[in-house]
């Protein structure tokens, strides 16, 4: 639980840093962090949350050292400690996650466990790219791949409930390999990022086609809500990848904000919105009973992201639109957190906590 709070701290400051980056009027400490938005969001927040999720599953004390390190790494970044300390903490945390993923593969060698290991390896690769190049830019494709491949691996696991389709596994391998190949090629050529985008586009189509979400969307209540979160996220993954295909992942490209946030917010946070009601209780031992109000932050997220992406596509004149979308994104996250906290309290009130 304290680890989760460390992660949440990085989320709050990471979002504030993102707003400062968009030129919003933020308090000085947040403005100073503007350059560290990606590191705070991906390493300090998602690294900690995913590390924690894995540690709860593995159950060993060592596994908790990972999220502890990335949580502290976030605080170190916020406190302005020397960068090598921060980088070392994140590298260590990603090594622990990768090691844990290898332990999972040894417990059960299957395509989905190997995919989770690849996802964790992408985080490590991104951190190493950051350390060796001295620039966060070099890490961005790997960090995105960390989130997307990890999520894809978790989804792959659930497709086993459905009747197997022969073509699904090879198509998944091709899309994942294209994504990783693109991330590697991005070191050498600007076309690498387009290959990367093509891989992500393939993964989005795969998820839309083969994931259990389409089946679950026909159920009711929480199961349906989760499925709709996922499906809407896959559409954003496809959208972000398409923007990437026209060059949007390149540093300095006018569509970069749209490409990165379609994926990091639209795809990844839709996943977070969907799974918080079941993962958060597993980590923090509270109940989050389903309520239809869960759809409100989800709708806000999507509408605000559409505004932001349109602002990005509109170019210089549409910059206010992009900023408005960004602010509304933060508002959607706030409403989401409030909805979850409200549900925790309701869960207690119902005497089920």
């Amino acid at each position, binding site marked *: 639980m304290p680890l989760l709070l460390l992660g949440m701290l990085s989320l709050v400051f990471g979002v504030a840093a993102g707003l400062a980056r968009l030129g919003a009027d933020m308090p000085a400490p947040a403005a100073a962090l503007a350059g560290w938005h990606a590191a705070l969001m991906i390493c300090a927040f998602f690294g900690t949350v995913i590390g924690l999720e894995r540690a709860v*599953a593995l159950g060993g004390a060592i596994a908790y050292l990972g999220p502890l390190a990335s949580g502290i790494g976030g605080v170190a970044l916020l406190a302005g400690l020397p960068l090598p300390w921060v980088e070392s903490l994140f590298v260590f945390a990603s090594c622990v996650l990768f090691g844990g993923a290898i332990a999972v593969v040894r417990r059960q060698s299957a395509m989905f466990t190997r995919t989770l290991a690849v996802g964790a390896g992408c985080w490590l690769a991104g951190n190493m790219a950051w350390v060796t190049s001295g620039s966060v830019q070099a890490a961005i494709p790997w960090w995105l791949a960390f989130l997307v491949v990890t999520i894809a691996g978790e989804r792959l696991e659930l497709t*086993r409930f459905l*009747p197997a389709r022969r073509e699904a596994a090879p198509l998944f391998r091709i899309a994942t390999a294209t994504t990783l190949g693109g991330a590697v090629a991005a070191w050498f050529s600007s076309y690498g990022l387009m290959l990367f985008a093509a891989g992500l586009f393939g993964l989005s189509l795969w998820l839309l086609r083969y994931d259990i979400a389409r089946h679950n969307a026909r159920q009711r209540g929480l*199961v349906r809500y989760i499925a709709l979160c996922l499906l809407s996220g896959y559409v954003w993954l496809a959208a972000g990848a398409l923007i990437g295909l026209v060059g949007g992942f390149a540093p300095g490209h006018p569509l970069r904000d749209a490409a990165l946030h379609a994926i990091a917010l639209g795809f990844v946070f839709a996943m977070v919105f969907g799974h918080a009601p*079941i993962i958060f209780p597993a*980590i923090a*031992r509270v109940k989050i009973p389903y309520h239809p109000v869960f759809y409100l932050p989800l709708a806000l997220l999507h509408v605000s992201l559409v505004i932001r992406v349109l602002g990005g596509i509109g170019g210089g004149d549409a910059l206010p639109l992009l900023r408005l979308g960004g602010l509304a994104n933060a508002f959607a996250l706030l409403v989401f957190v409030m909805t979850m906290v409200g549900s925790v309290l309701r869960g207690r009130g119902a005497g089920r906590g």
Partner: protein
Amino acid sequence: MSAMPDVESVREVLRQVIDPEVGVNIVDLGLVYGIDIAPGQISIRLTMTSPACPMGDMIMSDIDAALDAALPPEIGVVVNLVWDPPWSPEMMNKDARSHFGW
């Protein structure tokens, strides 16, 4: 000492425990590997679909809660999480399989 329930009635209680991701109960999904009934104690062997899944503890406490509500308080419940054999789709029963369109 109260009379011990039989395996079938314990299984019926476990059907109240739902995997929230797919909305199907853990018995039909084939996650319950064994139910052993000894005087005063019920032991359950349970698996998860993935060793990377963090929901194990929560499902185990849901099992405790369901059995506590259904059984006299003096009956103990032990739930062991096992990984051998790994879960596979063949372990789902007919209801679960037809739910997923097999």
